[in-house]
């Protein structure tokens, strides 16, 4: 924990009777990409605001780069770049002007500000749009400009609040690749909040699951899967033609199989599929794909497909949110 860049200890924020963040403990190491994952209203943004000293914690302490964020927010803000979830720019100014303004607020001299702004605009792929007013930028361009805006002060830590919100899939892919690349090149610590699991999964070294103001789990993907699934960490999906109860019984009776369930088919995949084919999910304590295939084929049914499943964040997320309370979720 010596090299922790962001350290939160028993951080709590209450609004009246409502507890937005409760007793949060978290340490983020230098140079890692940490994903803060949670549904809307889980307290992600509130936590970030407390790290920047923009909101005052009710109790507890947030330390960033060894500085108390509540007591000395200016020093923290000098080292931390923050991109709000719905970033705005001065729309009647050009992208270059907006970046230079941010740089000069960080006491970068004008000539140096211009040099940095231009090179960053080039880096995020906005070189051609530098002179264009930001009011005419598309959503994806605005997010990329936001990234440049965060980097222009040459921070040690970058905090991105929902950076991929409202961008098309291709734009998301590009943006995430950019974040990953920049983090590796500049050795930045990145804290990324999102409710998009797949995106977090793609680029984060570690993930924290955040529900109802509490961090319910954190670690890398393998650790999280282990945590949730316990012993039955392996799963296989089978597409079987001629599924029947006898076969189900056979599979259940197999060694190391813990559960067999018929999965509801997606609307999309149902199309163009022969009747009588069902998708079955089998979970076990070990990799049992070969045995399963053998027993399905041996029973006379058709085996049309077999997919070993790794537990993705999707599963983990879902598992937590369906089982637990649903604070902040609308039904």
């Amino acid at each position, binding site marked *: 924990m010596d090299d922790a860049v962001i350290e939160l200890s028993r951080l709590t924020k209450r609004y009246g009777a409502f507890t937005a963040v409760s007793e949060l403990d978290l340490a983020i190491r230098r140079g890692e990409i940490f994903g803060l994952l949670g549904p809307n209203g889980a307290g992600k943004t509130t936590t970030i605001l407390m790290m920047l000293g923009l909101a005052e914690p009710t109790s507890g302490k947030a330390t960033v780069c060894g500085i108390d964020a509540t007591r000395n927010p200016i020093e923290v803000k000098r080292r931390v*770049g923050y991109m709000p*979830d719905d970033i705005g720019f001065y729309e009647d100014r050009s992208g270059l002007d907006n970046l230079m303004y941010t740089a000069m*607020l960080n006491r970068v001299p*004008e000539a140096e500000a211009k040099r940095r702004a231009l090179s960053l605009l080039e880096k995020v792929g906005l070189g051609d749009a530098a002179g264009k007013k930001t009011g005419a930028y598309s959503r994806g361009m605005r997010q990329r400009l936001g990234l440049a805006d965060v980097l222009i002060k040459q921070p040690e830590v970058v905090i991105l609040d929902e950076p991929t919100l409202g961008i098309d899939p291709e734009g998301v892919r590009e943006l995430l690749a950019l974040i990953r690349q920049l983090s590796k090149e500049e050795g930045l610590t990145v804290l990324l909040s999102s409710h998009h699991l797949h995106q977090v999964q793609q680029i984060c070294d570690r993930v924290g699951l955040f529900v109802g103001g509490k961090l319910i789990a954190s670690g890398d993907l393998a650790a999280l899967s282990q945590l949730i699934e316990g012993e039955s960490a392996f799963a296989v999906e089978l597409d079987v033609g001629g599924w029947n109860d006898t076969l189900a019984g056979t599979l259940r009776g197999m060694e190391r199989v813990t559960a067999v369930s018929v999965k509801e088919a997606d609307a999309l995949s149902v199309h163009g599929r022969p009747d009588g084919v069902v998708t079955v999910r089998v979970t076990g304590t070990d990799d049992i794909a070969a045995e399963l295939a053998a027993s399905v084929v041996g029973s006379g049914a058709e085996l049309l497909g077999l997919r070993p499943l790794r537990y993705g964040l999707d599963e983990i997320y879902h598992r937590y949110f369906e089982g637990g309370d649903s604070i902040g979720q609308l039904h």
Partner: protein
Amino acid sequence: MANFIKRLLPAGDGPRERAAAARADLAPSPFWVMVRKEFGDHIRSWRFVILLAIVVLACAGSLYASISALKNGQSASASSGEGSAGFLFLRMFTESDGSLPGFLTFLSFLAPLIGIALGFDSVNTERNKGTLSRLLSQPLYRDDFLNAKFVAGLLLIAVVIFSLGFLVMGMGLFTIGYPPTPEEFWRVVVMLLITVVYVGLWLNLSLLFSVRFRQAATSALSGIALWIFFLVFYGMIVSLVGNATAPADTAAADVVIRHQNWMMLISRLSPAYLFQEAASTLMLPDTRTLNPFITQDQAYLAINAPLSFGQSLLLVWPQVVAIVAETTLSFAAAYVAFMRQEIRSRS
């Protein structure tokens, strides 16, 4: 005007400033960066151009009216006292031939509008567009943001008011060919200074509304409502209250005087009234007192001569202090409201 601002930057001439600037790698402090940007934004905005056009037209019109009144010698005060004949230059600001109100009247009417227009959307628009949270995540003090808004607005107001005032002076000089005495010049300068403070008060009020209300339209409307209230309705309400609470005709003199003093006090709560008193006393040196009650001795024994500049200033000093106090109060209110608000993006 950009040069004017640049000269105000701490990168300037004083040795202390130079040392401070050298420490920060010659970069101006975030506060002045913000002031410069705000100032530039104001000047480039259409709103400011339109506003300036209205005010300039009003001033040109009033100047024309006052000059034609002076030429015809048709105004009442010109013929009455010989004392006022000495202040021909000042009369340019107050006289009118009846077709249009004088410069001072126009100014007291339109100046609040400048303040309201410069401030009503300064905070809430930044909040709604999501620039506020981005700005405040930079290493700057939170109050610097509001201070910069105020200072930039006040600077712009000062530039506008003084250039208008000097424009009128110059045009008048050109047309009537009668130069001002130094005393007249200083009277005008002080009057312009008071106007700047007065407009600053309205700027602060509209800043307060822009902190308080999330919608720019609501904030503009509240500012305009308050402006109309003080300009039109406040006097009516005061006289209504005055009539209702007036002592009987048979009441003792001190009762009547006390009642009248109360009414004056209530009237003087209105910044518009204070400004009118202060500005017109400075522009009309014949005004010897702002008290409606003078004893017969005072009336007869007073020398029939205009007050000197210092005495006029002394007479309106309480008014000036009151306007400054009201300005400070409304800024404090905006400041407190802003500092207590939580900064979140677009909420």
